[in-house]
């Protein structure tokens, strides 16, 4: 049996009240120094307050299914309960499409609500999970995956039914190679069902260096945007893990050596920085705060093909709620996106 107890730490990157206060305080202080010196403070400072507008984007409810009937779904989160109406148009997913009333009490559910009818379910994902990282061990029926220093190791099992589908996209299920799969959460493990991308041909220790391009980094960057499992994040958090956090912050998360490649030219930011993320497939966009580091995302040089073919590279790793708010379908794994960074 593989040992999942690895050393992981939160550092500056865990989300919660402490990070939230620090992020907002940083925005305030930055606005203060830029305003005092007549810098590019106007649009950038204004951007800090430009968080998603209520009622404009799909809202997600996350929690444990406490009761389900053909017409009503009850989602519990701690002491609170949310009753959500199920209509004939609602769809659900638990490893495969199923009837919304097929979700079971005890399932961890992510429910996307109708933007116009806030108590009506549009889509339900039950027990959905994702593991994105570097394979560090393998035994007969499972893989141990490292998702970076700030997350615990993940145990992934691949059932026979999904094995062929996954191995077509991930032919090297060996230590040192990258893995990105979506599946169903079981106690202590993820049962992989869908490959979320195609595996890079090289192991993480032999990544090709990115091209050297001179000149200023553009304020708008296009590429693939993915989502990640909430580990320590509060339910429903709107935020983004960014692949290029300042390496001088004293909490580097490079999984391979001290200089992990970064295929997309992305400027260094910090927790608390804000950027605008636009879904190029649905044309919806919102401004999100950086809440963590996408240490593994920067190792992928893949494209998203949800609508057309995106430029190479992962430019952001969203929380589930942000991904849903921007019109993403969790089981697809990504959407083509453009991020805009304030100057």
């Amino acid at each position, binding site marked *: 049996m593989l040992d999942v107890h690895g050393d992981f730490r939160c550092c500056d990157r865990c989300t919660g009240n402490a990070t939230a206060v620090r992020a*907002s305080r940083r925005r305030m202080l*930055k*606005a203060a120094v830029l305003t005092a010196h007549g810098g590019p403070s106007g649009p950038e400072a204004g951007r800090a307050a430009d968080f*998603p507008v209520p009622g404009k984007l799909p809202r997600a409810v996350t929690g444990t299914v406490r009761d389900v009937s053909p017409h009503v779904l009850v989602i519990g989160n701690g002491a609170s309960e949310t009753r959500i109406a199920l209509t004939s148009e609602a769809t659900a997913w638990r490893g495969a499409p199923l009837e919304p009333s097929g979700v079971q009490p005890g399932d961890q559910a992510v429910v996307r609500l109708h933007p116009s009818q806030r108590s009506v379910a549009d889509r339900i994902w039950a027990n959905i999970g994702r593991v994105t990282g570097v394979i560090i061990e393998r035994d007969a029926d499972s893989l141990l995956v490292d998702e970076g220093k700030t997350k615990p190791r993940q145990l992934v099992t691949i059932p026979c039914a999904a094995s062929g589908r996954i191995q077509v996209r991930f032919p090297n299920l060996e230590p040192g190679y990258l893995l990105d799969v979506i599946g169903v959460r079981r106690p202590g493990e993820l049962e992989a069902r869908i490959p979320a991308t195609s595996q890079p041909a090289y192991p993480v220790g032999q990544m*090709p260096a990115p091209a050297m391009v001179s000149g200023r980094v553009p304020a708008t960057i296009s590429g693939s945007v993915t989502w990640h499992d909430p580990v320590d994040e509060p339910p429903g958090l709107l935020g983004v893990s960014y692949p290029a956090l300042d390496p*001088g912050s004293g909490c580097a998360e490079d999984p391979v050596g001290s200089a992990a490649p970064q295929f997309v030219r992305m400027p260094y*930011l910090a927790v608390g920085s804000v950027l605008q993320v636009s879904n190029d497939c649905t044309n919806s966009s919102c401004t999100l705060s950086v809440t963590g580091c996408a240490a593994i995302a920067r190792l992928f040089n893949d494209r998203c093909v949800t609508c057309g073919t995106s430029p190479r590279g992962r430019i952001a790793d969203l929380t589930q709620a942000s991904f849903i708010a921007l019109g993403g379908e969790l089981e697809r794994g990504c959407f083509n996106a453009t991020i805009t960074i304030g100057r």
Partner: protein
Amino acid sequence: MFGHAVLEIREAQVPLLSAMLLGGCAAKLARVLRVGSMDAGLGPTALFPLRLRRPVAVATAAVEFACGVALIVTAGGLGRGGPATGVRLATSLLFLVATCALIELRTSHPETGCGCFGEFSRAPVSGRTLARSAFFAAAALATIGLPPLRAPHPGADAARLLGIFAIELGVIALLSPELGEALTRLGYSEPCELRRLPTVRTLAALRRSSQWRKRAWLITTEVPVDMWRELCWRYVVFPARIGDRATEIIFAVYLRPHRPVVNSALVDSATGDVLAWPVAPARRRRFFAAKPQSTGLEPSGIRRLSADAESGSVSPAASLPISGARRPAPGASWPGPGSGLGAGSGRIPAGMLSAPSDPDQYLRAIRVDDPPNPGEDDLPLSSDL
């Protein structure tokens, strides 16, 4: 005459081959040192299973180094006969095997670089790469059976030898895709947004700046309470105190290696308002009079506060907000310096303030017991939509 010219060309191959082998070995070593792992090798090691790649990379570099050194050592009278021939045969064999491996690599891993010169050989194996390897194999074969090398006579002999070197280096340059990569690197200037600059250097540059000299008398702790980077700027926050009022000084340091631009602002810790800078005490004014005080960055419209010239204390009533910077919600409090790890009532003289040698040190100074309800500036949740 023709025979003599051919002999000179054959003799020129020995130092050239040695230089190429040692140069390739050095470039590979530089890449390993930069990446920190032997596994990060390029080239024909990709043909081997993962567990064999490290020993193959080590063996390749070792053989290159050994052949390069041995070619020089056996070039003169020391290697007369057997040793010189053996070394040159081994070098020929090395280049022949390398040529075959590159052909195989081009077929099976068309996207992989040859790795011949480490980091510079990232371009996929091309016909030029193969031709260069074959050229070296032919050059090594041409050295077999040469008599011991002699130093050329000054004058015509030396000029002819230099000419041969120049022509051959030109041919090698034409066959080397690495030349383009090297020229690209020479002309590359890293944008400031991507520049890696340690926090220690930022703090050292800040300490040397005139902004620091002007503001340091207000600062109450040695280590910053927060530091972060966005794009081309690194922001450093120090707690400060004006009379009984807890404030914070934020410095924005432009990320460039030498003489960065530094901006600063004074912010009320409780309300988040930007405050006007208090006038330094008289003794400090005299001290700084020898140095230029105006950086040209003083915000226009900031009112000088009435201050006690001797004590440096400022009437709290005079410290009025001067801009519309964002304020926290009513009832919410900013994690101010007063309760931070570095809080203190005494001011630190500028000369005593120093950048922490441990880059993590400032992170540990950040408060983690922030209030549970941060107010309207909390990160938004999906339920807010």
